[in-house]
């Protein structure tokens, strides 16, 4: 067994990776296996996260060409790994970067929607949220008020946003993919 295989097998054993997950990883080229091992060790990925990474890396390379190693050495993936962030924060940063590559249009739309919500400038007593992956496209508006005056002010604020077209523009974003 090569040193690489041994390292992967040891990691798989420590993290109790399923045989299917290990087989998928081991089916990659040695170069890709090695590049992934570096990431996996830094982030200490368990079965679920590791499988997510395998899925996305394979899907991206099937779509765009290239190799997993090339993806994993991109600056937006590599830099968080090298940073002084805590492990969980590194994992979050790397996964978000990979998700943006995996879902470019969805990520762009989500970013546009977040920016449009921020631009509504509704203050911290009105929360606007949207469903995961924008599936359903319903926007949820949540108001907090500790008295009638505050509630009235918030409703007036929302009404202004309806009248000035800002909320309409928010809904229209979903047609701009």
């Amino acid at each position, binding site marked *: 067994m090569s040193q690489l295989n041994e390292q992967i097998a040891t990691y798989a054993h420590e993290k109790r990776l399923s045989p299917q997950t290990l087989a998928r990883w081991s089916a990659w080229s040695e170069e890709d296996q090695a590049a992934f091992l570096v990431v996996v060790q830094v982030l200490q990925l368990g079965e679920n996260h590791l499988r997510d990474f395998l899925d996305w890396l394979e899907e991206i390379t099937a*779509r765009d060409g290239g190799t997993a190693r090339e993806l994993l050495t991109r600056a937006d993936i590599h830099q968080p790994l090298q940073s002084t962030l805590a492990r969980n924060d590194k994992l979050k940063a790397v996964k978000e970067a990979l998700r943006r590559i995996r879902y470019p249009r*969805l990520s762009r739309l989500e970013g546009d929607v977040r920016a449009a919500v921020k631009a509504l400038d509704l203050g911290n007593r009105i929360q606007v949220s949207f469903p995961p992956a924008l599936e359903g496209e319903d926007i949820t508006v949540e108001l907090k008020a500790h008295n009638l005056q505050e509630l009235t002010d918030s409703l007036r604020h929302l009404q202004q946003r309806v009248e000035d077209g800002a909320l309409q523009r928010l809904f229209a974003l979903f047609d701009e*993919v």
Partner: protein
Amino acid sequence: MQTYQPSEILIEQGEENTPVVQRVLTRLPHVPVRIVEKDWERKTPARTSPALSEHEPFAAGKRRVLFTRQRSTFLEHCPAGTSGLVCCNYLVVSLISNCSMDCSYCFLQEYLANNPTLKVFTNVGELLSEVAGAVDRHPERHFRIGTGELSDSLALDPLLGFSADMVPFFAARQNVLLELKTKSDCVNGLLSLDPKERVVVSWSLTPSEIIDTEEHGTASFAERLAAARQVQAAGYKLGFHFDPLIEYPNWEEGYRDTIAQIFSTIDVRRVAWVSVGSLRMTPALRTAVRRRFPQTRILSGEQVPCGDGKWRTFQALRVKMYRAITGWLKEAAPTVPMYMCMETAAVWEKVFGHVPSSDKEVARTLTQPNLAGV
């Protein structure tokens, strides 16, 4: 398109002399035959089935044909109907369970994962009696019944010859349409039969580059189109199902060209309906696809989990695809009824500008134009 060749024929005891078995034995004299006991499949745990000794059990299972009786009802509501989604009130009958083809995205990989064989039901007469019982008892109602739920409706017709039973039966009835849904060009068995405007032969279609890379063992786009022209000339109505819609880098060009080619070739007046439906997969199906087709690009679109647990292209992009494709279809065939499969009311509203009031309304828009005045 390659002709289907099973590696083995299994015949349930007592079914040896049924017409379909006799036909097949005549047509395939060199394929090994084994008589098996009743309920052989139930008694043969999938993991000890001979198919599973092969590297790829699901694919190997497609090559083993089992002739057996259907012991439960044939006629069912389409199982794709799901709470929360708009449905078209379709009914299905299955004479065959499993498919000789192997599309990378096919739900049978999950639905029949433990099925070691391709099953053919021998009791066709009982199927026809069951349908007659439902249809003849309600002459005031219109029915739409398809045979392409658990298999391709025509891919095995050269071998099994079921169309000779089905077409005359449905042609003789005033209130029902039979749909034969296929990705094959196996239409020869239909050409000498008179459908009397009661039979719709429909093709599931994707652009050529998807057919060539993901729809293994199916007819090419050109072959399907040639077959459509043949059955059109023989008096059949046509249907086209752009389902599943596959999002890939050149999807707009691909679908636009596909639609243009279809409607420059066939007579739009013979088209009974068209449908669109997004690629949709359960998590288990995605796992099966990944394992069986590691080179596929089917999973590389921007698919996300939806409310019914299935993964689809994210909604805004899905709506964009639907609008584009239904727009081209409307241009090419403005009066042909169109519907969506397994979509929410919200998406119907965004694409068509209205939501059907009920499943029956959808069904009426499909049956009325095709049964009126006949």
